[in-house]
């Protein structure tokens, strides 16, 4: 927009500010709630931060809420991180390899294989959750990191995106690599993966958040507190039986649960944007 129209500029900014405010407000409230005592919060939510911040965060990080049957949040954060990272890295590795196979190798039923993967896009975790649970239980993977992450690793989305990207890599590059004596896996490692850097960064962000936000699946496969993840942990905290939920502590947990994805986005976005600016072709 090169036009200079003050009214338009004003309207644009007003819309943006209102939109941002609507988006940020709940998070702000959660933060405010996490800085007051439990009684203050239950009386009615104040709009300004209180002075209980240190105490509240010390409790959730250190002791946990024994009354709600939840471990200290540090452990849950670590569990969530392990699960999200395992899912993300697993998905990236498997989808890179499978799209490499689909694009660069001729094997029987190649098209069928691709469409089978593609169709699973229509089956989210929830649809197949009972059979998956059965399989995981039979394999004895309940209450383990493997049980938390492996069933969620197969990814049609990432496979599809990498396939689309690989198909744009010029054939001549493949041929040059063949003449340079690079076998298939060398070509994959030395050329395809480095070229996919920006795609990998973008997918890392998306998949990490996907893994981090898993709720139903961890709820099903973990009964042992030491494997609770933070997202399902919040729910445990809120279901405190007869007592009033300790909203100040729950909100402190929510704020802490928010931080890792935010950090991932901030860190990876730099890489992502730099990748976008340096167009390679």
């Amino acid at each position, binding site marked *: 927009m090169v036009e200079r129209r003050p009214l338009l500029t004003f309207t644009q900014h007003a819309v943006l500010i209102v939109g941002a405010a609507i988006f940020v407000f709940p998070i702000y409230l959660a933060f405010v709630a996490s800085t007051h005592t439990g009684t203050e919060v239950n009386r009615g939510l104040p709009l300004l931060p209180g002075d209980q911040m240190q105490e509240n965060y010390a409790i959730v990080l250190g002791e946990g809420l024994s009354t709600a049957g939840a471990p200290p949040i540090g452990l849950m954060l670590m569990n969530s991180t392990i699960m999200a990272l395992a899912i993300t890295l697993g998905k990236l590795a498997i989808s890179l390899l499978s799209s490499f196979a689909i694009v660069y190798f001729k094997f029987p039923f190649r098209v069928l294989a691709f469409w089978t993967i593609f169709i699973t896009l229509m089956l989210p975790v929830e649809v197949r959750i009972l059979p998956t649970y059965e399989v995981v239980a039979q394999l004895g993977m309940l209450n383990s990191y493997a049980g938390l992450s492996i069933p969620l690793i197969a990814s049609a989305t990432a496979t599809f995106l990498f396939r689309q990207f690989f198909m744009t890599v*010029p054939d*001549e*590059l493949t*041929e*040059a*690599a*063949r*003449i*340079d*004596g*690079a076998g298939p896996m*060398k070509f994959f490692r*030395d*050329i395809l993966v*480095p*070229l996919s*850097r920006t795609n990998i960064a973008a997918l890392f962000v998306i998949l990490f958040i996907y893994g981090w936000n898993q709720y139903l699946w961890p709820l099903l496969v973990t009964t042992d507190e030491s494997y609770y993840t933070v997202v399902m942990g919040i729910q445990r905290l809120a279901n405190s039986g007869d007592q009033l939920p300790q909203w100040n502590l729950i909100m402190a947990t929510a704020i802490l649960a928010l931080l890792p994805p935010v950090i991932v986005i901030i860190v990876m976005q730099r890489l992502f944007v730099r990748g976008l600016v*340096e*167009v*390679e*072709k």
Partner: protein
Amino acid sequence: MSDISLRDVRKVYSGAEAPTIPGLSLEIVSGELCVLVGPSGCGKSTLLRMVAGLEEVSDGEIAIAGRRVNDLEPAERDISMVFQNYALYPHMTVFNNMAYGLKNRGMPKDEIRRRVDEAAVMLGLDGFLARRPRELSGGQRQRVAMGRAIVREPAAFLFDEPLSNLDAKLRVKTRVEIRDLQQRLRTTSIYVTHDQQEAMTLADKLVVMNAGQIEQIGTPIEVYERPASLFVAGFIGSPPMNLLPPSAVPSLAPASAPEHALIGIRPESMVPADDGPIALDVRVVERLGATSTIHGRLPGLESDVIASVPSTVPADPGRTMRFSSPGDGVHLFDGRTGRRLG
């Protein structure tokens, strides 16, 4: 010794009705630059890719330096190739682009460094080794692609239309550089192009291809002076050779010429002469500086006859000009088989 020989090489793509290359033999002598030229779809690139090992050979035998290579991987054939789009690895520096093939062969680091430095100096790339391909101009990228081929010190270079992505001026310059480089290194080379001028200037041996078959093999001058067929006559030379029925120029047709013969005269062989046997009604005159190209009509003929004359010769549209042609400028072809007569 690193000659390349192709014996009865055939290529049939699966599903295709007719073979792309129905059977072709060619000998390329060690140190020679052999240019394959022809219109698009004539099978010249397919042939090159079969030599490189990027296409399977349906039948026949390809040997490089006396060794049958049909079943060898491209990397095992001791060749290197320069692609039309350069095919540089975008994420690697110029140095790594050139060194990659050597690294894969397990060559010691200092030897790689020595070879890459040497090639970089030869190609004027010594200041650019740390750059990425996207930071280079088209001509520089082309030279990196050449460098990648050179450092391997292969038995043969294969060029697949390496100049077609450059602008006209750079193309002429790079053409000279390639010729110079090949003459210094004396590496057997196959060069594919559809540009007949490029083919003429580069070739030791010119192979004109059409529809998967060889129309003529010879030095550029042989092919130019004695085209073996109507196709070659029309393809090599610019503007193309004029092809006339004997009835249009009875005095130039040998008495022995059969009725279905065609007379070919190159525009450059059309010499203005007051009493010449060819009388053209001049339609268009294109002035190119040193020469002028005259487009004119012979009575009773549908298509233009073209003459290339020095620009000092006065020529204006609407006039009638007379031309003669020296005896060796007249070619005779069989109009039915397309082959040269005599």
